[in-house]
């Protein structure tokens, strides 16, 4: 372990909340929202790998790999959905999709 775990956590936190801020702000473009989600997932992976290195346990790495697999399926579905929605309304602005409104 080369650096204290806290530093890794702070870095991961910074990345995660930067991604979150971007996710909140980029509501006009669904692609960018997905990009921001990738950033957040990356931060989670960093925590998992850091933990794995800290305690010498392979489970953290395995979870990082799981997350990666999960991300790839998520991204493929999400992008298919973006295409679908774009086909419906010719836009990727999420504010124009308010079907959930009661």
């Amino acid at each position, binding site marked *: 372990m080369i650096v204290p775990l806290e530093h890794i956590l702070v870095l991961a936190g910074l990345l995660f909340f930067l991604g979150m801020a971007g996710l*909140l702000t980029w509501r006009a473009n669904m692609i960018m929202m997905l990009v921001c989600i990738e950033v957040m997932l990356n931060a989670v992976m960093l925590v998992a790998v850091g933990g794995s290195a800290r305690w010498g346990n392979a489970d953290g790495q395995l979870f990082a790999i799981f997350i990666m697999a999960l991300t790839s399926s998520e991204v493929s579905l999400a992008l298919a959905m973006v295409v679908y929605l774009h086909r419906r309304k010719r836009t990727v602005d999420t504010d124009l999709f308010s079907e*959930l409104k009661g």
Partner: protein
Amino acid sequence: MKLYLALILLLPLAGGLINALIGRMLPRKVGETIACGVIWGAFSCALLAYTNFTAPVTAEYGSWLSTFDFKAPIALYLDQFSLILTLMITFVCGLIHLYSVGYMGEEASHARYFALLNLFVFAMLVLVLAANLPLLYLGWEGVGFCSYALIGFWYTEEKNATAGRKAFIVTRIGDTAFGIAIIWMFLLFGTQSIAELNFLAPLAPPGVITVLGILLLIGAAGKSAQLPLSVWLPDAMAGPTPVSAQIHAATMVTAGVYLLARMFPLIGSSPTTLAAIAVTGGATAFYAATCACAQRDLKRILAYSTISQIGYMILGVGAGALTAAGFHLLTHAFFKALLFLGAGCVITALHHQQDIFRMGGLRGKLPAVYWPFLAGVLCLAGFPLSGGFFSKDAILGAVFERGGSLYTSLFLLGLLTALLTAFYTFRMLFIVFHGEADNANHQENGERTLPLVMTITLVPLAILGLGGGVLNLPAYLGEGLLARFFGSIPGFGAMHSSHMEELILQGIAAAVSLLGLGLAWQRYMGVQRSGVLAREQAGSKLFIFLQNGWYLDELYRLLFIRPFVRLARFLWKGVDETAIDGALEGLARLMGRLALLPSAWSTGKVATSLFGLAGGVAAILAYCAWALS
């Protein structure tokens, strides 16, 4: 006896029910026959009861109200007074029913009319024959309801329906006082039987008796149209004329007099109450007589004359002269029914023209109406030797005998009223039947021929009215039949005065009556007639004041109706709409606004949900940081 009494009541009730339930399906003739037949059947039963009558009887038929101590059985009490009244009611109402057959010959809803008329008689008979106060009150209210329905019989016209409502509401004021008195009497004496109440009366403290008497007087004033509750009767002319006749002569307005006479042993022990009764009667008699002098509607003249005559009866009760009051009640029933039916004939003949100034000269055209009408006029005016003369004089004599400054002044007021009565009665007669015909009115319409049944019913009434004096001749002409018959009833004790005094009083009364006749003759029959009529049609200030009944209606409107309407409007607009509705609507609006706050967050957009999520994360983390540090 028990059977006769039951039949007297049940026959009109059955007739009313038959006409009400299936009258529309029956042929017109059958309905009319049933309606008239049951009344005459009741009259026959009353006659049979009279022939079998020996002593007062109480007949109990069943239990009606019975709760703990409170008992009000269906019990009838027949004594001389109620027997005579029953005879009079059934006879006069029978004639009125016959007359109605002719008068309402073209009316479409005859079933409703005759059903109500029969029920009216039934209610009045219940009132007269009841042995206890709740049953009497039942009849009392029944009379009120039937009068309401009959006054507003032609309810499609707003005016008539309003008159009906007015009668109902004004009499309701008196009924409330009467109801309070009934309950109070039960609390005091623990019984509702009239005979027991009269027997137990001396046990009650005098102050309570006075208040009870005043309450009963208010009740009687409401029903009998005495001051200050007299306003409904002139408007009650909106109903069909036979209904007016029935209300005025036989059934409704005499109920107050009957009640006071019936409860006289109870209330008679309080001089204050008696004075109040006498003053009410005297003032009403005078007030109505002045109003009658200025009316131009034939039926309104008769209405005011009824108020005036009932005032005399109340005055008689107040003077303790129950026999005289009952005597006047009888003769008044005959001649007032006669006058109303005669007026109905005139009105029918002139195509529902009621303005006396549009009449005139009918004597030659309607002789069959003129002569009976003249008989009625003589009675009403107290013309010497007519029935009305004796009965009115009996009352005035009793008031005079009573002595004291109050009763003496009331006697003088009564004499003045008698003068006015004679004046307005002959004024009516002269204007309507004498003089020149109003050609403009007559020629375009022509007189309608009257059904025979309408004129023939006037004859027995005229005979009874004129000869009614025989029933109770003054003492100097032999003892009166009624006085002897009533003598045994408590409270109906005979008045004793010297023959000389009585002769002098009768002389005065005759002179007054003749003076009124002379005044009217001089004013309406001489050369001045056309000028006087023109002046009266134009109307001077005093004339209009009297014509509007001293503006009593306006006084009511000013004192009660307008504040009430204003209060109601305030409660409606101010309290109900502004405060209550406003508060509720405001609350609903506030809730709606508040609901908009969270609902603004449910936009259905992804960004909003994400903001919520991020906010939650931030809040939880901030809490953790705060809790750890």
